[in-house]
């Protein structure tokens, strides 16, 4: 076809495996066994006639009986005393905070049903991650603890308070240690409560410990500049971004924020100004960030240090002791070229490294100082408070417990039995502690061995505040009365430390009244009320100082290189293992959330599991195929204990040879019915080296002989090699902005078979910028939350029955030194599979003006509207599935089950609590009907009605789709194409715009903008 590049979704598609070809002949992989019924005993036998009569008799009887039913009695129960602000049927929005981001919580009749970004959020500008979107479901998790517990039995708060206070009193006089272990807290009020607690019990120490730690960066900055902080990175100010394994678009520090910054120099506006940043990624496994990079260079974990040393050498012109060329020639070459590019972008360059190693981070600091990044792309003065964990303090604490020095320990938002690399050690050590208290709001691995469980409120039930970045203060306010008999952890701490302030709300008020409100120019009751409407205050940024690096690097270089040597895999069956956080589950705290479990991993498209990602070359060498379960065994250098797990292999093009990547956050043993036993826990593979926890290690692998099918969505919808993806390079784009978008390779216009539709006022369309989409999947979860999309579970995903209305297609293509591949023969050499490029394409109903689905529906259940939308009337659908078969975009989903009332899906969304999260404005679909993206029609209708009630014309931007609203990079824009001034009309006029499969003449309503890659020919 038009494009000369070949795209493929998975190796089975690339190699045209027979099974794949067979399955993809049909829209539905498993045909209904009609043939069997007809040919086998079928209709020929004698019994069917009798059965038919029986069924007929029963049917008639049942229908008659059903018709005799009187009017079903529905109760309608109004409020006794209606809260003033609640109008049944109208949503209320409250500001709050998730993970330091200002958010809006949408509530209906007092129930939070959706999390939306606060458009004024300083960090992500209204963008939200998939995790934030999914967090609302955790409120209704029926696995949450209903009441406080004492020694495993149900208890009351009075009993708990008496017990804990008595114990604490005794421990205080005994003089032994009290330890408060928390994950990072950046709430000023919570920190003040903890300080009060420590004042009351002076033998207390607050230990901050993060499951995935950033201690390396903090200590490196302490070492280099005397500031023990994570700096605030400004990717938007960088023209050249070089990342060594930092997945800053996916999981690293503040991804929703970084995505917005990153796209600022790459999106439509920037391209229109002929400006695009360059992003080079050195990494092992294919991360979200790596897959979005302009150039991606494969290195093993053991080579990362050497690559950094060489980069420093090339930049500074010195040679650090122990420097040597890497064994990896392409990486070696790349480092030199990258150095040249970085030098050219002096002051507008940024180098980041995902390692938690202090030495590496010191070297990165030196590199950034060389590049003049401090004060421009890195801001050490308005630093981040998002992670403050101190790994060494935590290991010391384990030692203290083992020595019997600790009498009381409190866990707040921390689950070390699961997250610590030696959970058993924690379990054993905790046995020596007299008082073990956890504030966990649901059962977890640590709570089951604590003698006191004082369940905390969920954040949607709490008062509180946050201070993610210096100068940015956000407020948390409750949006629902506590669902269970829980109590906010801060309140518990206040009670136990005999605080003079009686409740935590007053405490938060006091903190704001005394210190914080004034910073935002507010004061008093009025100021507080303003805050509760705006959600945050922002103090003007301090001027970012420029820092110079003046430490000796010789020792640092030596440490780095030594460590690289220990990570090298020796022998045939040894692999370097890299651990990463998956986009959906991150550190695993939300493992019991079905929306997240079913969110396909952006790159591998695997749901409901973690896996061992291996390079295709390695697999061929070792004779493995996808799904083979292997044993992965790691000897922990700290205690020489070995730990092994069995995981299925995933073929990952673009994985560095000789390495395996595995996601953290899986394999929970006490998480609840959804998350329990999904995948394997690889936290035990974490290495404690040089005072920090590190994610690289060496493992020996062995075959188990098993093979499992991973629940992957990647090749479920083959695009039959059609030209759906278009991309170009920045060079080409500058020469010809319409490069590869159809402008220069215009195909002939076809005769229209159908008449055009009238669009009297609105023509709702969408523009999706492939250059802005990072594939993070936030839109998928937002759509599920908005449109009551059911969760189907692992088995059903394996049968290709996932229900997501919007999916993100991930396409691989080959990088061939600038050359394009035209013939399949040229790509037989598997070596090329290491060097692949990735394009993400959000795919949803295209709302075609000449929709093929509409013409084949025998019951007119799917029809066109005068507003350019393809309607789907569920109550009219009889489930012939013709429409899905006729859809060229494969976006229609069939309800194989009544997912909302079928005991087989009990773990997911069916129970009286999770039903509370449903959007009341959207129906839940019954078994046997087709569904698909409705273009959030409920939002369109609500937007129009609002304008009508306010007697004003509808403004552009009044209506936002759920996917558009959450997108941290604003890749999706929705609007009225009939209005020439609307944002979407402007975007669709861009030369980059093309329509997927426009040659079919279906006139899709969604325009895509060509992906532009800023590749340097010399480097690829």
């Amino acid at each position: 076809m038009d494009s000369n590049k070949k795209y493929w979704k998975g190796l089975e598609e690339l190699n045209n495996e027979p099974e794949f070809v067979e399955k993809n002949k049909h829209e539905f992989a498993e045909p209904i066994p009609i043939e069997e019924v007809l040919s086998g005993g079928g209709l020929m036998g004698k019994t069917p006639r009798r059965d038919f009569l029986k069924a007929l008799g029963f049917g008639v009887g049942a229908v008659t009986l059903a018709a005799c039913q009187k009017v079903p009695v529905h109760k309608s129960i109004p409020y006794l005393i209606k809260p003033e602000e609640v109008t049944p049927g109208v949503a209320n929005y409250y500001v709050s905070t998730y993970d330091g981001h200002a958010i809006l919580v949408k509530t209906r009749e007092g129930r939070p049903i959706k999390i939306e970004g606060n458009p004024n959020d300083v960090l992500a500008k209204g963008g939200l991650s998939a995790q934030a979107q999914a967090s609302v479901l955790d409120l209704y998790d029926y696995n949450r603890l209903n009441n406080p517990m004492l020694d495993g039995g149900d208890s009351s708060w009075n009993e708990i308070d008496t017990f804990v206070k008595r114990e604490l009193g005794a421990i205080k006089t005994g003089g032994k240690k009290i330890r408060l272990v928390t994950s990072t807290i950046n709430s000023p009020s919570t920190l003040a409560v903890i300080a009060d607690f420590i004042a009351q019990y002076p033998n207390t120490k607050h230990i901050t410990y993060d499951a995935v730690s950033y201690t390396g960066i903090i200590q490196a900055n302490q070492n280099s500049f005397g500031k023990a902080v994570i700096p605030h990175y400004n990717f938007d100010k960088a023209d050249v971004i070089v990342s060594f394994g930092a997945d800053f678009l996916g999981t690293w520090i503040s991804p929703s924020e970084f995505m917005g910054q990153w796209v600022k120099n790459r999106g439509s506006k920037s391209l229109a100004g002929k400006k695009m940043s360059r992003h080079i990624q050195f990494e092992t496994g294919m991360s979200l960030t790596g897959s979005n990079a302009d150039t991606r260079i494969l290195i093993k974990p053991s080579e990362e240090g050497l690559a950094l040393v060489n980069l420093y050498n090339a930049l500074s012109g010195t040679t650090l002791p122990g420097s040597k060329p890497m064994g990896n020639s392409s990486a070696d070459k790349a480092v030199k070229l990258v150095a040249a590019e970085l030098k050219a972008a002096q002051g507008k360059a940024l180098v980041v490294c995902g390692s938690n190693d202090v030495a590496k981070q010191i070297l990165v600091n030196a590199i950034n100082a060389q590049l003049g990044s401090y004060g421009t792309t890195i801001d050490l003065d308005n630093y981040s408070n998002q992670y403050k964990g101190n790994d060494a303090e935590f290991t010391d604490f384990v030692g203290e417990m083992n020595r019997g020095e600790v009498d009381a320990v409190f866990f707040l938002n921390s689950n070390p039995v699961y997250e610590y690399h030696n959970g058993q050690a924690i379990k054993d050590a905790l046995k020596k502690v007299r008082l073990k208290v956890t504030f966990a709001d649901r059962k977890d691995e640590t709570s089951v061995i604590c003698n006191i469980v004082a369940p905390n409120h969920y954040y949607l039930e709490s008062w509180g505040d946050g201070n993610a970045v210096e100068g940015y203060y956000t407020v948390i306010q409750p949006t629902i009365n506590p669902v269970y008999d829980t109590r906010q952890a801060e309140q518990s701490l206040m009670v136990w430390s005999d605080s003079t302030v009686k409740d935590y709300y007053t405490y938060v008020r006091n903190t704001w009244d005394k210190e914080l409100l004034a910073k935002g120019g507010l004061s008093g009751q009025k100021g507080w009320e303003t805050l509760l409407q705006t959600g945050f205050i922002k103090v003007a940024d301090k001027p970012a100082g420029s820092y110079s690096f003046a430490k000796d690097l010789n020792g640092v270089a030596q440490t780095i290189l030594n460590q690289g040597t220990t990570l090298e895999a020796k022998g045939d069956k040894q692999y370097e293992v890299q651990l990463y956080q998956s986009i959906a589950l991150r550190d695993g705290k939300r493992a019991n959330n079905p929306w997240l479990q079913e969110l396909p991993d952006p790159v591998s498209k695997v749901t409901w599991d973690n896996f061992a990602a291996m390079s295709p070359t390695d697999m061929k060498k070792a004779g493995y195929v996808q799904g083979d379960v292997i044993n992965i065994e790691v000897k922990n250098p700290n205690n020489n204990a070995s730990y092994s797990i069995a995981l299925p292999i995933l073929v990952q093009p673009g994985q560095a040879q000789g390495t395996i990547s595995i996601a953290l956050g899986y394999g929970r043993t006490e998480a609840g019915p959804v998350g329990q036993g999904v995948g394997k826990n690889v936290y035990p593979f974490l290495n404690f080296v040089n005072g920090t926890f590190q994610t690289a290690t060496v493992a020996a692998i062995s075959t188990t002989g098993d093979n499992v099918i991973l629940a992957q969505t990647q090749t479920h919808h083959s695009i039959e090699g059609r030209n759906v993806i278009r991309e170009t390079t920045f060079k080409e784009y500058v020469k010809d902005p319409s490069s590869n978008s159809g402008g220069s390779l215009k195909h002939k216009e076809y005769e229209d078979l159908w008449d055009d539709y009238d669009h009297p006022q609105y023509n709702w369309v969408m523009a999706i910028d492939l250059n802005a989409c990072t594939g993070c999947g936030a839109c998928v979860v937002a759509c599920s939350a908005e449109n009551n999309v059911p969760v189907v579970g692992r088995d059903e995903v394996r049968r290709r029955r996932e229900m997501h209305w919007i999916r993100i297609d991930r396409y691989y293509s080959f990088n061939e030194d600038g050359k394009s591949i035209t013939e399949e023969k040229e790509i037989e050499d598997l070596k090329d599979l290491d060097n692949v490029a990735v394009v993400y394409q959000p795919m949803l109903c295209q709302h075609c003006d000449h929709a093929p689905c509409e013409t084949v529906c025998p019951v007119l259940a799917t029809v066109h509207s005068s507003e350019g939308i393809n309607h789907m009337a569920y109550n009219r659908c009889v489930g012939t599935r013709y429409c899905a078969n006729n859809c060229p975009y494969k976006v229609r989903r069939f309800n194989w089950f009544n997912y909302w009332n079928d005991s087989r899906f009990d773990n997911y969304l069916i129970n009286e609590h999770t039903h509370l999260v449903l959007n009341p404005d959207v129906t839940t679909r019954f078994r046997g009907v087709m569904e698909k993206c409705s273009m959030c029609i409920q939002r369109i209708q609500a937007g129009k009605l609002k304008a009508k009630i306010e007697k004003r014309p509808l403004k552009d931007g009044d209506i936002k789709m759920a996917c558009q609203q959450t997108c941290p990079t604003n890749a999706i824009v929705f609007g009225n194409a009939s209005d020439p001034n609307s944002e979407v009309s402007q975007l669709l006029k861009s030369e980059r715009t093309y329509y997927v499969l426009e040659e079919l003449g279906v006139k899709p309503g969604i325009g895509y903008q060509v992906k532009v890659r800023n590749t340097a020919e010399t480097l690829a």
Partner: protein
Amino acid sequence: MRSISLILKQFSRSVLLVAGFTILGLSAYAQGDAAKGKTIFEAKCTACHKVDQRLIGPALGPQLDKETDEKFLVKWIQNNTALIAAKDPKALAIYNEYNQSNMTVFPDLTDADVTNILTYVRTEWKTMQEDAKKAPAGGAVETDKGPSNIMIFGLIGVILVAFIVIMVLNKVVKTLERLIANKPDLLVEPVPVEEVQVDKYAGIKKLAKNKKFVFFVLLCVSIAGGGWTWMTMWNTDVHQGYQPVQPIKFPHDLHAGAMKINCQYCHTGAYKSKNASIPSLNVCMNCHKVITGLKGSNAPSAEIHKIYDALGYDPQTQKYDSTKMRPVQWVRIHNLPDFAYFNHSQHVKVQGLKCQTCHGPVETMKEVYQYSPLTMKWCIQCHKRTEVNTKGNAYYEKMEAVHEMIRKGEKVTEAMMGGIECGKCHY
């Protein structure tokens, strides 16, 4: 019947009032004009006071029995704040008893006015007390139980008539039996009767052999049966006229009809939400804190008491007990299926439809029933026939311009603007 009892009641009341006046003529208190007092009392005092019951302020009848110092009362009513400020001990006592809330001051009332009020209150209170005393023996009982007595009399009458009819019929039967017994030959007649029967069957058999006739009958039966089935099928799950028994017998005819209360006073959601919403009980209490029963009756009506019970409210102490609260479980009458989206504000606020258009003459309904069929056909018919209210709504300005070109000044219906497309209601 209720109206008869009301008339009787009012009659007895006026008789008693006249009697009261004559008694009052002999009373020792300073005299005023009770009729004038009544006018002023109703204009100024009823917001906070009742004669026999505590409302916001004390029950005035008993209070005035206790307090006989006219001068103090006049001063208090004219300006109680001044009295309190002057630390008058009696004034302070009342002030403290009623949670230190001030009574409104009435500087415009003259001494004579106040006396009139006092006279009226005392008269009224006396009347009430005498009513109460008479109640066990006197006409009050008769008037109260009037309707039920009439019912009982009616029933007895019916039974008597029925009894007489039965007696007469019995007599007739016995007479006939006697006649037959006396003339036994009357019974020997069956043979000719049998012959007649044979003839009759023969006629039917003849008809049955007539193919045209059979066909005609069958056709009629199948048309009638088919028609009936068709209608029944169409009306499956159409509950027009559905009138369930509600937990509280709420008379819309009284509230919306006689009292002319605007629908939106209670169904506040209709203007701003998709739900018109059933009012919460605090809305009921806006009025029913004061109106406890039928006009003139002291005991709270049983139905109104259900509101109090639901709220855990004690009308004596005027306190709420949240532990006794339990919601009222109304039975839903208008019940659209879940897959149909309907928004009240769209129709009521934007289009300006009257509630009665869909809900029927609610202001005449003693108990509400489903007036409209609520079928899709019914929805669409209206969307096709009703002109859209675009006047003064800037939202339609842009749209109208487009339409003007297409249709040249015909009426705009919802259907023309896409109002009958599936996705406008089904999502």
